[in-house]
């Protein structure tokens, strides 16, 4: 039997129904944990902090200018959400998916169930991805609404007749992609390092200063892809240029699949890694 025929036979004989029901069970359980655990409170605060600040600005500031506020929102998104909020939110959420179970000494229950470990990685990743996307997409939407709602007819015209709606969709899309990229990265790091905080700081450095790296290495940065998808270009002034300049831009048609491929490669690595993982809580 040829290798293609063998692979096809294996594919057809695989217990897809069981895998699907296992995936749903993992997803439901982990999603509940991600969204409702007490540890997630700081992630909610991290996500909603800019919305709170914008709300205060709307309430107490007398001077409003739509182009200025559009630029400010773009800055909040690029400098706060992408580089801090989503980054640290995903760090907290995704590293805890496996590391948390090791700390709580409960990972062995999964390892002793008839679930392929690769499926466990996928299930936990999807739960973290959905949870982080829901939290951050909602907070970005809230920021957007608070920024433009008080402009009245001008704000409505900007959203529905101008570029506003496109901006909103782009912000939401980039947020989802950021959760995908950072999520896969932090999940894999949590399977390699006992304390993923230090490697997390290294990643933060890499993501921040990737613009000064050779163009080949830049492609291994999540921020490289995300920056080019942002709808507002922040003027490259002084040191801030380090965060905003795109040395070799690629189109959205390459940036989105590029980030997806990077995330997929990291997840494949995580799947290989978990197959070799042993339970020795004492060592952890």
């Amino acid at each position, binding site marked *: 039997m040829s290798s293609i025929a063998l692979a096809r036979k294996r594919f057809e004989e695989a217990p897809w129904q*069981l895998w699907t029901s296992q995936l749903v*069970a993992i997803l439901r359980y982990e999603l509940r944990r991600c969204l409702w655990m007490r540890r997630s409170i700081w992630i909610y605060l991290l996500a909603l902090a800019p919305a709170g600040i914008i709300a205060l600005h709307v309430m107490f500031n007398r001077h409003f200018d739509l182009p200025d506020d559009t630029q400010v929102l773009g800055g909040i998104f690029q400098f706060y959400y992408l580089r801090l909020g989503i980054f640290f939110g995903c760090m907290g959420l995704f590293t805890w998916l496996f590391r948390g179970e090791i700390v*709580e000494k409960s990972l062995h229950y999964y390892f002793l169930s*008839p679930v392929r470990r690769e499926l466990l990685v996928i299930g936990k990743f999807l739960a973290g991805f959905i949870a982080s996307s829901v939290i951050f997409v909602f907070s970005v939407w809230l920021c957007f609404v608070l920024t433009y709602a008080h402009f009245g007819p001008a704000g409505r015209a900007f959203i529905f007749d101008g570029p506003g709606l496109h901006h909103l969709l782009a912000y939401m899309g980039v947020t989802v992609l950021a959760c995908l990229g950072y999520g896969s990265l932090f999940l894999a790091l949590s399977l390699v390092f006992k304390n993923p905080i230090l490697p997390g700081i290294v990643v933060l450095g890499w993501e921040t200063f990737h613009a000064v790296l050779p163009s080949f290495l830049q492609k291994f940065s999540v921020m490289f892809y995300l920056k080019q998808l942002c709808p507002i270009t922040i003027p490259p002034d002084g040191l801030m240029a380090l965060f905003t300049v795109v040395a070799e831009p690629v189109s959205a048609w390459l940036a989105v699949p590029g980030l997806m491929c990077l995330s997929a490669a990291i997840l494949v690595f995580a799947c290989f890694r978990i197959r*070799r993982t042993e*339970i020795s809580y004492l060592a952890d």
Partner: protein
Amino acid sequence: MTANNNAIVFDNVSKFYGEVLGVNRVNLSLPPGITSLVGPNGSGKTTLMNLMTGLVRPTQGNITVLGLTPDQPEEFFTRVGYCTQFDSFPKGITGYDFIYHSLKLRGRTHKQAHELAFEAMERLGISEAAHRRVAGYSKGMRQRIRLAQAIAHHPTVLVLDEPLNGLDPMARAESIALFEALGKEGLHVIISSHVLHEVDKISDQVVLMSYGYVVAEGQIHGVRSEVKEHPMQILVRCDNPSRLAARLFSQDHVVEAKLNSDGKGVLVRTRDADQFYLLLNRIVVDEDFALEAVAPADDDVNSIYQYLIRGGGGTV
């Protein structure tokens, strides 16, 4: 060692944690029934169980459970249940959810998972606490909920690491009865325990471990008869123990014959139990002794453990 689809087979298995020895060169074939792993702390009992269930991987050698390995988790863990020593649970979970979720991972429908969860909890006598958080359970209840989770899916191999820890005497007796019943149903029940006299009562075979090595294995009586350095002790109760003691002591294979502390029997130490029983039969018939009872006095896991592991100096 050949593949065996009805046994748990360790084929030259070693496990090292860095430079620390877990177990070394273990060759075992465990048939159905109750098998006790006995040994002091750090002897490798838990490592052996973790190896069996794939929680740790062997540095060398192969392990199969009913011909399966943990690399085929769908089939393997449908047939294996493992109650570990870790007294920990996912945060905030209730007893019912704990078992229900594990059954959902096994592909059970909501109805099946619900019924099986309650069946297991009822078997362990904790169904009344089903919807309470496990964090609020007593130690004994936590032990029982873990046991319930291990048996809920009706495994054919049940691995239990110190399952009697934290249980009160009543719960211990109930758990032992449960293990005995499962063993009689044809399951492989592998138990590690340091409560030797309780394990002794129900074990079909025993594996004695020390410093990562299997010191002895097999049926308890078989293992005992092979401990040559320590003559077997047999207690004979009869109407005239001093005359019987004098009569027995004249035999070569009888090392010692002394009156029991209550004065109603003779404690005999012999190098050849079979010869001794033949001799005893003859004496009783010829000399008209009224025999009340004859029973081995050190034919149990505890004695073998003492002889082989606690510096008794025995070898098999």
